[in-house]
């Protein structure tokens, strides 16, 4: 048999048929939906007079548009309330399980999927959201789709997609103190640019990736889309199986053992070839921060924003536009720069380990009086666990407030908006113009670097604190 990459292995086994000179028809095992990109799809079903083929394969949760305070009250924004109610109605009508506000399983769609064991190795997983790539951390083929495709999956449990090319990104070695999975992925994107992965599906490999926890692997796969890739995945191993065991939707008992035996076969053959390969050394990765208006514009926190001369002539206009928006001079250092907001949360860094990292850093220190800090758990389960572990108490003692789960300031659809011109140090995944509110200036970092900023009120190198 021809040798295969892990991606090929999963993809090929899900192909229902192939259209000549066209896309492949891919069967979808798990479909996640949320309130923003699904209403038009349900509407489409109605106009076609068709129903949902496999409602048990779809799970819903409202996350993008929900308030992160007073979730026990009716949503005050009329349009948001309507959108969430619409999701509930559509799910009821079509027998789809939905975990709504205040349900113990509610949360950001990409946080609850893994947490509930809905995400399993070898599956094809889609959602009307580009960060569906998160689920690739379990060795699944997971990618974001548009609303027309949401409708396709509801109606037929399939999507039509051209098969992407394969890329392997290997990170070998050990990361240093103060460096996290977020820094690894920001580093990779800064090297590949925001379009370097377009047309590809990425497999992350190497000792630095193997050594990461499941949550850290999710942070890496989550941002695959930020380099343009369709998705990213990591071969499952003992760390994966242990994470899945015992979760709500995970196979139980004997079934679990059998599943693990099958999951163990999910790897890239030694002699399989990728269309493209990159290798990086973990030792070269330092705490990262972005200085521009796309996630590829990142650098080590202690280095300088590139000077104009270092930018290719044809890219200078875009670069200057971006630096003007950010109010950052080319060629300068960001260390010591005053900031206004800190956002800890999102499907990139809103899981329990992220909150542990942040809390461990700020413990015994005091929040800077000059910054507003939003700490938003990725899910109700994360919120409850943070409470049980005493994290919320520690944070309160240091002057921080804890909010309720949702996407929040990651995309600023709800009230959590950064005001115009203000600087926000954020653990989310996108620093596009206006992403956190019209005119907001976002700098992407890890939870540890966010903690250093929350304490000092300035861009600070977290390693300066670790040494002391």
């Amino acid at each position: 048999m021809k040798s295969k990459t892990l991606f090929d292995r999963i993809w090929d086994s899900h192909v229902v048929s192939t259209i000549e000179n066209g896309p492949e028809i891919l069967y979808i095992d798990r479909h996640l939906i949320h309130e923003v990109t699904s209403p038009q799809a349900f509407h489409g079903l109605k106009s076609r007079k068709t129903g949902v083929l496999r409602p048990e394969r779809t799970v819903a949760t409202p996350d993008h548009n929900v308030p992160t305070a007073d979730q026990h009250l009716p949503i005050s924004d009329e349009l948001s309330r309507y959108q969430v109610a619409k999701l509930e109605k559509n799910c009821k009508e079509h027998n789809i399980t939905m975990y709504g506000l205040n349900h113990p399983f509610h949360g950001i769609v990409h946080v609850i999927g893994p947490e509930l064991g809905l995400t399993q190795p070898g599956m094809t997983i889609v959602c009307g959201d580009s960060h569906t790539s998160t689920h690739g951390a379990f060795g699944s083929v997971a990618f974001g789709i548009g609303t027309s495709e949401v409708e396709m999956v509801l109606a037929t449990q399939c999507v039509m997609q051209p098969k992407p090319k394969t890329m392997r990104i290997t990170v070998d070695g050990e990361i240093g103190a103060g460096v996290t999975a977020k820094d690894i992925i920001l580093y990779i994107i800064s090297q590949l640019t925001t379009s370097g992965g377009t047309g590809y599906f990425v497999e992350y490999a190497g000792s630095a990736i193997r050594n990461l926890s499941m949550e850290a692997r999710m942070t890496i796969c989550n941002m695959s889309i930020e380099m343009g890739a369709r998705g990213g995945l990591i071969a499952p191993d003992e760390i994966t199986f242990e994470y899945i065991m015992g979760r709500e939707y995970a196979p139980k008992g004997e079934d679990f053992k059998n599943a693990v035996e099958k999951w163990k076969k999910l790897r890239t053959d030694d002699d399989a070839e990728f269309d493209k390969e990159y290798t990086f050394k973990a030792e070269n990765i330092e705490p990262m921060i972005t200085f521009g208006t796309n996630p590829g514009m990142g650098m080590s926190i202690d280095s300088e924003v590139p000077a104009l001369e270092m930018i290719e002539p044809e890219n200078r206009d875009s670069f200057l536009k971006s630096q003007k928006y950010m109010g950052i001079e080319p060629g300068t250092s960001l260390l010591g720069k005053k900031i206004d907001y800190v956002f800890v949360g999102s499907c990139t860094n809103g899981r329990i380990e992220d909150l542990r990292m942040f809390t461990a850093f700020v413990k015994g220190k005091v929040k800077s009086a000059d910054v507003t800090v939003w700490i938003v758990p990725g899910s109700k389960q994360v919120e409850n666990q943070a409470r049980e572990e005493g994290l919320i108490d520690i944070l309160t003692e240091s002057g921080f407030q804890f909010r309720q789960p949702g996407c929040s300031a990651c995309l600023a659809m709800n009230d959590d908006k950064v005001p115009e011109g203000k600087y926000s140090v954020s653990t989310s995944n996108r620093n596009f113009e206006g992403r956190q509110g019209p005119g907001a200036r976002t700098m992407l970092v890890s939870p540890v670097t966010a903690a250093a900023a929350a304490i000092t009120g300035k861009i600070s190198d977290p390693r300066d604190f670790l040494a002391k």
Partner: protein
Amino acid sequence: MAKEKFISEESGCIPLNIENVDTDQIIPARFLKATTRDGFGENLFRDWRYDRKNEPVKEFVLNRPEVKGKILVTGKNFGSGSSREHAAWAIYDYGFRVVVSSFFADIFKNNALNNGLLPVQVSQDFLEKLFVLLEDDKTTRVKVDLEEQTISVPSTGMNQHFGISSYKKECMLNGYDDIDYLLNIKDEVLDFEKRRSLW
């Protein structure tokens, strides 16, 4: 559901000479609260089109009355970021039928094709020349012929071939959509469910 057919289009162009235009710029998240597909054109490029007081930004190309057309010409890596199909709906709803760039983000390209909006990928060189022409003469017309898969500037004779999968081409020419296709082969899907084996 049948979509509007796309055969060819000849019109003026709107040049947006910016690279890496992401979907948050095309349609900011705060306008995604609607539950229908209509009306997103109103907020297309909202934060570039209007200032914070909601006054139109005079210099922005969509606000310049002398620039008209159904073809949007943009810098490379157009449509990166979020998977929101609202971006394609907004561009279509505003009145565009074609987007020309030297590079498109994957999900955007798919979304556009699923909504009767034709993404035409040209070489960087062709794109730069086109921007120069449009800079010199705002009324320069461009012709996009899907049957022939060509984009040309009739006044200068400049032209280029562009790629599209033959399946998608058929869909666009005939106004078919993928869901119709899939619903027609539902038996194959049911059969797959029975016969599927593991990886």
